[in-house]
């Protein structure tokens, strides 16, 4: 019996027998934490008797969540992370150079096809977009990997997602992944790997693939992997800091189930409070008034997201009742947006533009919601209290829906502004 891509990657990094459900000890290629999970991981590393991390070029800390430091306690956390990274000679980037981790690490060529990447952040599944098995773990697991260079993985069953047809220009990766999570449910891929196939994949740009893999966890997935193609390899070759060997599924791989989606039928889609699986077309909820819009995050803070949002906002104004926050996910994105004149488009429209950070996504800072407020957000979670008061609401959307909503002061399908 052939292997799925997750099985193929695990098999290349273990001596144990690989089959769905088995627990394998695997070699980890890259392991990182952020300013929230880093400090407790450091504490656990020391409790384990760790002295040196297994390879300082494959271990990283990225201060992106509560940075630039939002208060004294978070400044203390960031300081612990900084000092440890310096002492270990690990990869570390300071505010002004770092980006939102899952946008930044692929840009830096530090996650590459065929590898196992573990991060102290649930959205580490983002790296499936470059054909890597990326998966999130907690801080004790990260500490163990820093110490040993290894971890245990349960080999996941795989759901094959076949995307066919031509996507309309009004939809992107966010519409597709929210649609998928709506189909299979927020635990439809629990413990499982999502593997993306189909003739539509060639028409899904790299940035949109990052968006889709990013939200595999919102269906409970361990990972969400695109089979590498020319788009993947061109992206990886241009940036990779290490040699890499892509992994591919076998033709006779065994899948738990196959989910087929005709992408030509997908319309601009949102997820209503309080679950990412509450999918509905934007048009169907165009009466929902909003107070805030956030465009950014590890889901949709890449340059093509910023460009799409700017294309809607150019020559328009943010609605009087709405605050729009635009946060490019990295300085590469920020600088490109500057070069293209997009930052001026946003400020002319009456938006705030902030330095790269996770910011309001998980209610950290730079855009907390008050009681009773509602936001449209391009981030990945709309759980109760995620962006502020437990009685606030989040509608998840892609950058075009978010920008159109900012202009109209309510959830809006971008085609409403098409003239």
């Amino acid at each position, binding site marked *: 019996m052939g292997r799925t891509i997750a099985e193929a990657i695990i098999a290349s990094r273990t001596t144990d027998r690989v089959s769905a459900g088995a*627990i394998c000890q695997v070699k980890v290629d890259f392991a990182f934490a952020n300013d*929230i*999970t880093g*400090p*407790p991981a450091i*504490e*656990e590393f020391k*409790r*384990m*008797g*760790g002295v040196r991390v297994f390879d300082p070029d494959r271990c990283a800390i990225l201060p992106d*969540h*509560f940075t630039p430091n*939002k*208060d004294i*306690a*978070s400044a203390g*956390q960031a300081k612990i992370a900084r000092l440890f990274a310096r002492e270990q000679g690990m990869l570390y980037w300071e505010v002004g150079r770092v980006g939102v981790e899952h946008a930044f690490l692929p840009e830096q060529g530090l996650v590459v096809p065929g590898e196992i990447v573990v*991060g*102290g*952040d*649930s959205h*580490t599944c983002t790296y499936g977009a470059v054909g890597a098995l990326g998966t*999130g*773990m*907690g*801080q*004790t*697991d990260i*500490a*163990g990997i820093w*110490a*040993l260079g290894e971890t*245990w993985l*349960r080999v996941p069953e795989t759901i094959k997602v076949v995307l066919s047809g031509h996507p309309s220009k009004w939809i992107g990766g966010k519409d597709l992944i929210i649609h998928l999570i709506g189909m299979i449910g*927020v*635990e439809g891929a*629990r*413990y499982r790997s999502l593997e993306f196939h189909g003739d539509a994949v060639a028409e899904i740009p790299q940035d949109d693939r990052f968006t889709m893999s990013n939200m595999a*966890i919102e269906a*409970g997935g*361990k990972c969400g992997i695109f089979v590498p193609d020319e788009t993947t390899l061109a992206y990886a070759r241009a940036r990779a800091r290490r040699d890499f060997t892509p992994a591919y599924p076998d033709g006779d791989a065994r899948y738990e189930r196959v989910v087929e989606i005709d992408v030509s039928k997908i319309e601009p889609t949102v997820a209503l409070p309080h*679950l990412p699986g509450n999918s509905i077309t934007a048009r169907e909820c165009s009466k929902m008034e909003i107070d805030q819009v956030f465009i950014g995050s590890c889901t949709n803070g890449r340059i093509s997201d910023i460009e799409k949002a700017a294309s809607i906002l150019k020559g328009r104004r943010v609605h009087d009742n709405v605050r729009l926050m635009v946060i490019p996910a990295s300085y590469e994105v920020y600088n490109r947006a500057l070069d293209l004149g997009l930052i001026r488009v946003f400020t002319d429209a009456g938006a705030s533009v902030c330095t790269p950070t996770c910011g309001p996504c*998980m*209610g*950290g800072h730079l855009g*907390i919601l008050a009681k009773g407020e509602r936001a449209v957000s391009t981030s990945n*979670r709309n*759980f*109760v*209290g*995620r962006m502020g008061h*437990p009685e606030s609401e989040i509608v998840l959307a892609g950058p075009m829906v978010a920008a159109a909503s900012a202009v109209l002061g309510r959830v809006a399908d971008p085609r409403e502004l098409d003239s």
Partner: protein
Amino acid sequence: MSGSSKKILAGRAWVYGENVNTDVIIPARYLNTSDPERLAPHCMEDIDSAFADGVAQGDIIVAGNNFGCGSSREHAPIAIMASGISCVIAGSFGRIFFRNAINIGLPILECPEAALSSAVSKGDRIEADLQTGRVLNITNGREFASNPIPEFLQSLFSAGGLVPYVRKRLESAS
């Protein structure tokens, strides 16, 4: 706490529905610390403001499917443990929460029958046998079987979690 220290746990039930995510178990606004004593007072705050003040040492959480879904924050099982909860029983667990709980020695049982809404009511006396996976609702007399935990994970848990496991491996390597 070591997972091997106590095999039969008993306490009052705190009952929740499906998809209890880590953002409501411990909201991100409190993650500028990982100190258990500072996290516990905010545990479950966004879905049950009565929990932190009402929970007693040994109480048990009984919840629906996908408990602990969402973020990787280990602060979630840490906050639950620090609040005095002795065991979490759920229909199923988010995978990162599952790992985190085993790693820090928070007892968890995957027990789909106990997770059904009719099986356990808030305040029922619950007994959970970690060895056999048997869950008994003392209040209504019903008994439920849990899904077995894989052997490797059972041994990791019994050894006290991931820290002693890694320490032993580092010591044997040097």
